[in-house]
């Protein structure tokens, strides 16, 4: 500006003026670009307040607003995960016999991906995508938190004002009727009626440490989940109903159906295929938890890649359900969700969730993938919850781990392995 003051136009001043004119032109041009995200994002591209339009529709609205306000992200080389050989074999072996029942239930399912051939013109494609999501490969069992230093899930609740609270926990999953690697296969005898069992143990802070839940999901679509809770302050197991699935699992912003993006009973919802879409995701998270400013959820050093997804709209059959709709973006290969968007009963934008993934190794050295950090933001109250939950797969846990006897052995802060 010094040169202008002096009455002379330097090259720098000229460049500034051109940039200003270009910016004005861009502002006028923007409305045309509102729904046209840039599918040609290249590794090395940087997206920020000046070119946020390039990722519009590829991330959640709240995240996009943060980019508009100054956050920048970088695009990296895409990483494509490939299904495990055993899962592919099971899909080839059993998928031919799988059918949808009159109420959308899955018939004749044994293991693998139920519907490997997706036809956009199929009137039942939504329901089939939902089942593909539900039966995506998640190992035969896994310990969440098992692949992080310290072996714990790290959960941080961030208030609107930026204050934070931490909690540590660990969880164990088993899929007793869809086993691909560990014997017995494909199902543990006696457990053919159980889709999955989850054991979740809080370990920090001290007063909640030892709080343990045992959740059992049954294959029978009419049977609700069983949930038992061991409460250390009374040292007893209490039965909990699971039909109130909308209740907030405070202080987090998750509810029972938000776990793993969508944890509802498949047959309790209707599904609509909205099309295919490229979105931004991170399949190679580098730090656990990722670097961020205190009080903020935005990942600072992580890069993003473009991923091909199916967009699936989920609407509840129950008119009193907390979400009027939920949209999942399902990875076309693995059926994991990268972005999940939720609207409240009034149809107003409510929550958005993104999940990073990371490569992990099986005990035989093969590389698979695990969720890394998941972020859920309630855009209405401004609170965010981050969960860093890397998985260690195929640990060979005995099914007896998921029994009430385990709950009776929990000590304060203790592990169960």
């Amino acid at each position, binding site marked *: 500006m010094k040169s202008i003051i002096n009455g002379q136009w330097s090259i720098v001043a000229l460049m500034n003026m051109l940039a200003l004119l270009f910016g004005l032109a861009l502002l006028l041009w923007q409305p045309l670009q509102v729904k046209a995200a840039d599918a040609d994002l290249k590794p090395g591209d940087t997206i920020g307040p000046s070119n946020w339009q390039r990722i519009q529709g590829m991330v959640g609205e709240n995240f996009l607003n943060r980019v508009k306000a100054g956050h920048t992200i970088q695009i990296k080389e895409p990483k494509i995960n490939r299904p495990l050989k055993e899962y592919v074999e099971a899909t080839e072996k059993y998928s031919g016999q799988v059918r949808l029942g009159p109420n959308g239930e899955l018939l004749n399912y044994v293991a693998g991906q139920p519907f490997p051939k997706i036809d956009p013109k199929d009137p039942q494609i939504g329901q089939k995508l939902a089942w593909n999501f539900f039966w995506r490969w998640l190992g035969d069992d896994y310990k969440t938190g098992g692949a992080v230093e310290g072996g714990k899930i790290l959960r941080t609740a961030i208030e609107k004002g930026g204050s934070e609270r931490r*909690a540590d926990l660990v969880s164990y999953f088993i899929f007793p009727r869809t086993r691909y690697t560990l014997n017995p296969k494909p199902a543990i005898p006696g457990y053919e009626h159980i889709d999955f069992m989850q054991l979740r143990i809080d370990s920090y802070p001290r007063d909640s440490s030892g709080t343990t839940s045992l959740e059992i999901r049954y294959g029978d679509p009419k049977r609700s989940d069983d949930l038992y809770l061991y409460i250390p302050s009374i040292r007893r197991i209490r039965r909990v*109903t699971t039909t109130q699935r909308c209740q907030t699992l405070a202080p987090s912003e998750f509810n029972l159906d938000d776990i793993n993006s969508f944890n509802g009973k498949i047959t309790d919802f209707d599904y609509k295929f909205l099309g295919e879409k490229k979105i931004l995701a991170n399949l190679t998270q580098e730090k656990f938890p990722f670097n961020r400013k205190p009080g903020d959820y935005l990942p600072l050093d992580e890069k993003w890649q473009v991923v091909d997804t199916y967009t699936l709209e989920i609407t509840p059959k129950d008119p009193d359900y907390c979400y009027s709709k939920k949209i999942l973006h399902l990875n076309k290969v693995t059926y994991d969700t990268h972005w999940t968007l939720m609207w409240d009963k009034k149809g107003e934008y409510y929550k958005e969730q993104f999940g990073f993934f990371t490569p992990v190794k099986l005990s035989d050295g093969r590389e698979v993938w695990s969720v890394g950090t998941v972020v859920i933001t309630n855009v209405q*109250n401004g609170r965010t919850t981050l969960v860093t939950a890397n998985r260690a797969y195929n640990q060979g846990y005995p*099914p*007896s781990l998921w029994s009430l006897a385990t709950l009776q052995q929990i000590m304060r802060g203790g592990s169960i392995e």
Partner: protein
Amino acid sequence: MDHRTKIFPLYFLLSLFIATPAHAASILGGEWEKYLTERVSFSGFFDNTTGLSIGAGDRHFHTTNRFIMNRFTFQPELNVDVVEKLKLFISWRFVKEPRYNAEARSRRKTVAPKPVEPLDNTFYDEDSFKPWEMVWDYNPTGSLSIRLGRQFISWGETDGLRLLDVINSADLTFAPSLAPNLFDTDETRIPSWGVRALYTVAPVTNSILEFFALPGFDEAKQRVDEVLGSNDTADGRVVYGRWSSHPETRMPFGRMFTNGLAGRSTIIPVVSRILPDAGDNWKIGSRITHNIGKLNFGLGYIWGYNPQGGDMVFKLRSISPGPPTTTIANIQLINDRTSIFAGHFNYAVDEVVGIPFNTAIRGEVAFYPSEPYNISKYPGNAFRAGPHPRHPDGITEKNTLRYSLGFDRSTLIPFLQEDPYRAFRMSFQIFQRIILDHEDGIRAFSTANKIKMVSTNFTFRVGTGYFGDTILPDVFLFYDPTGYWAANPAVTYAPSWNEKIKITLTAAIYWGRDKFSFPGLLDEKDSIFLKMRYQF
């Protein structure tokens, strides 16, 4: 032991814990550092509870500021995964109530002539290095687990009150009754040395066999009950605890055991308490649990010494002449051996005739064969209750059935919440005691009040969280249809900037038409408390 000497170990331990983390691993070397990092975890809490009486107090408690509690608790806890199948958990509990010195002085000045005395200054303190809990968990197979050491064993399904949860005794000296929001059962229950084994027969149906044996090595703690009768007066002392009731509730109960010697109709009760020796102190129990569909249930049996205060009885041992016109009734306070046939169930009800119910139903039942009760006959001498001619020792035994039924549900009440999906947890419970083959004159040992054939209590509890669970209100209510109430409202602040801190403001409030019955005898003991906790 000198007072300062006693608390020195506490300071030493504190300084050790504060100084240790930064250096220990590097001093011990890489392997130890790895072991300590991966297999050892350390936690615990510091706690301060301050209580103010909002009732009128009594003649035995005239401190000017009604400052009834200032309790510091430090509880370090250590978990060690020794090897793959063996774990160790140890905790210690250190308690200091510096305020009690003032109370003891106050009582000494104001209390009536001997044998009434204040408690020792250090009565509520706990400064022993004996572990509070110390258990070895050994899991030789996926199906069998064995827990050895000083431990808690809690059966049952109830919330706030205990029915089947009678395997460990509870310390009722420092905590107010019916106030689970102030001290939960984990803080009041006393661990016992013993062994417990769980064998999972069929995990998919939760078919589990359980066995425990507790030899009862622990020494008994002096009682400071709510009423005079519970005190051991044979040593010439009567001690009043924090929750000792208003003096008029202490009634002369000796006349219910004897009419006295000829010409000596005034009865002076002299109470002694002989605690069972280790041989009598054994407790053994076994249980099997199982699922049928959505129903989870268990059946069990407990045999042994019954430590529950409410189940004690007086037994007339002898009478002897006392001062002129008086007879001394030597009465012993006893806990009998007990057999308890126990059962529990829980069941989740999603809907009833198509209407959403969303409620977990749970129940407990305990059958006590030949449970002892004190008994008297009315009218005795001078139209007052007197000894029962068919029960010369003042005791009768009756089969007794106790059960509870509880209903738990989470309910969304959007107009009462800033987050419409933060649920209110509600719990409603019914407790009943039925004395089979009931006789008129059966009385509670402690208040000498009559016990009807059927006694009923109700509890209701509701809790929720506001502002991301930084404000946590919880209300516990107790109701006895014969005219008694208790309320324990609480609100906890859990700051959004530090998960280690919790501050709870709570009150213990009692109403009762009759100060001779529970909880009416606590009617003038209404108090408020501030509890501050730092967890690490």
